[in-house]
């Protein structure tokens, strides 16, 4: 059975294009994260999948069936809202069994299912509590149990961790992921937190300005960003602007070697990215070696972030091995491994990094 699939989805509010030509196929039983800065259209996309907004153009299908115009209450995709949206007039158990009550399930059966689900999220002891008596973390568990009650084909979560404090957030990320894997339910999580996306997702869809920038596994997105936006948004990166020359990149007097060679016509303006942990202070190679001067050292225990001034621009190097004591003003050599350099086309509106 083909899973959930979006084709050329577009959403505009007046002149504002919130989502622009998005086509995605979601893996059955997998967890996909829609990741991007606020205002990138990820929540709008999720709401269109849920049926809470109508796309201006394009189609949504589930298992080969077109559901673009199907209203939300007929789709029954379980959804967890950012505010959790628990019903204040119902207790925990009645909140969880709401979907079953609506569907006309006998009371006893609905209550039994609610108990089962509350067991699943470890809240059995709270079944009779009022919503006002729960903590943020407990509310989130109730919201998750409630969304799963109708055994939805697709499970949607809109920034589910944003109302939790940092410590709880990390625990819940792992817990939610384990729950999702146990149930094997197709899940889509909207988040602006790349750490959260990398922790939970089988695949990540990076979005910006209503467009999909890249879709892939967390590893692929981190190690092989397809454009400067992804390289910048996922993890940290040092950026340098230059032009191509025989597959390599020239920045001022320095010609940096790239493997595999960058596929550009000579003289194309490009932006080059290097992850801080890929640059090396004590490299054995002679290629891509640059003189550098230490301008700042940030020592956070396991890793040192060393800020450097080099002839091609400023950069940050994360060093976890050498452990050599460095001071501001020290002169040293930095090596940028040829296979750690990512080259992207430089658009005219991008300012130099």
């Amino acid at each position, binding site marked *: 059975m083909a899973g959930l699939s979006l084709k050329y989805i577009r959403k505009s509010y007046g002149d504002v294009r919130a989502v622009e030509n998005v086509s995605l196929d979601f893996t059955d039983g997998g967890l996909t994260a829609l990741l991007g800065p606020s205002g990138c259209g990820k929540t709008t996309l999720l709401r269109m999948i*849920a*049926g*809470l907004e109508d796309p201006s153009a394009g189609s949504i299908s589930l298992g080969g069936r077109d559901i673009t115009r199907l*209203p*939300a*209450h*007929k*789709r*029954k*995709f*379980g*959804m967890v*809202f*950012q*505010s959790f*949206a*628990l*019903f*204040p*007039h119902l207790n925990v158990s009645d909140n969880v069994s*709401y*979907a079953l*009550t*609506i*569907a006309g399930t006998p009371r006893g059966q609905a209550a039994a299912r609610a108990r089962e689900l509350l067991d699943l999220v470890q809240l059995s002891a709270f079944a009779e509590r009022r919503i006002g008596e729960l903590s943020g973390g407990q509310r989130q568990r109730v919201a998750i149990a*409630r*969304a799963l*009650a*109708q055994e939805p084909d697709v499970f*949607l979560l809109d920034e589910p961790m944003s109302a939790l404090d940092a410590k709880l957030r990390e625990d819940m990320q792992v817990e939610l992921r384990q729950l999702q894997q146990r149930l094997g339910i197709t899940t889509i999580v909207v988040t602006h937190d790349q750490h959260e996306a990398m922790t939970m997702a089988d695949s990540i869809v990076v979005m910006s300005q209503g467009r999909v920038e890249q879709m892939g596994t967390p590893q692929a997105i981190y190690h092989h960003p397809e454009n400067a936006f992804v390289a910048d948004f996922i993890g940290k990166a040092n950026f340098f602007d230059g032009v191509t020359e025989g597959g390599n990149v020239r920045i001022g007097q320095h010609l940096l070697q790239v493997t595999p060679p960058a596929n550009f016509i000579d003289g194309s303006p490009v932006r080059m990215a290097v992850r801080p942990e890929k640059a090396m202070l004590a490299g054995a190679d002679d290629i891509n070696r640059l003189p550098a001067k230490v301008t700042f050292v940030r020592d956070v225990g396991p890793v040192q972030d060393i800020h450097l001034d080099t002839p091609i621009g400023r950069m940050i190097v994360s060093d976890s091995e050498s452990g050599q004591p460095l001071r501001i003003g020290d002169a040293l050599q930095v090596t940028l491994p040829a296979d750690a350099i990512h080259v992207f086309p430089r658009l005219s509106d991008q300012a130099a990094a």
Partner: protein
Amino acid sequence: MTAVDSPKANLSAETPPTRSPWGTWALALVIGFLCVTPFVLVIVISFGQKIEGAGWAWDFTFANYQRFFVGALWPEEVTLLHLQRLYYALYYAVIASVLAVLTAFPFTYLLTRQSRRAQSIWLVFILASLSLSEVFIVMGWDVLLSNRSGLPMLFEVSGATDWLKETGWFEVLREWGLANPRNVKFKTSEFATILTMSYLVWPYAVILLYPALSRLDPSLTEAARTMGAGPARVMTSVILPTVKLPLIGATLLLFVFLLGSYVTVVVFAEPAKQTTAVAVYESVRGSTLDAPFGAAQAVILLVTAAAFLALAQYLTKRSEAR
């Protein structure tokens, strides 16, 4: 002018280094006097005695209350006229307040779903409509519903009356007291009384419901939709239960307010279906000039309103503790 003078006196009393309590006391006394005295006076007079042709005298008799419940000639004869007037006061007020809240609710709900700008314009308009006095509104409806120049005339001229006669609806309207042998008539009738009362308090209903409905989190209704609830189910299972208390509160407030309606009842209610509020005024100022009996009726009206409020409070508390 004491009420205006005393706050000033109070302020000036605060300026010296040693603060004198006299200003505060004086203010409390004035406020107490203004609030409590008329109230106490009405209660006291309700136990007084009417003197034929010479006003009334202080006394302590339950005769006025007895007259209200069973009539002046009790035990030889029982008259329920005054109880009947209280019944009509309750009847009009209950239906009109429920009607106003029921119709204001969907309007206010849709209003809170509009843009901020549209909401402000509507709210300003509704607030402005509160400045219309009861007399003004009643006059407008009086013209609109009058037999010679209002809607009945329009019915006649447009042929609607003939149509009603042909289809048999005219007989139904006659049974409801909304038609005379020749044409439809709305004055005087329960219909006109209740309609005008609802109209009077409708802006208040919107203003009372607005805060609760605008605070309603839209994600609550969206959550219900994703769980399979259609629009009607969302209304009955999420929106109404969430705003149940404000709905009851608004209805009660309007009910108590309408219990004392005067102009509307005088103009639109049939003579046999007048209310206690009208009777109070007639006793005190009208041809009978019986201040003690008027006071007794006023006290009974007040106690009735208080009893309804207490009952509502009890019912809400019980449903909360469920």
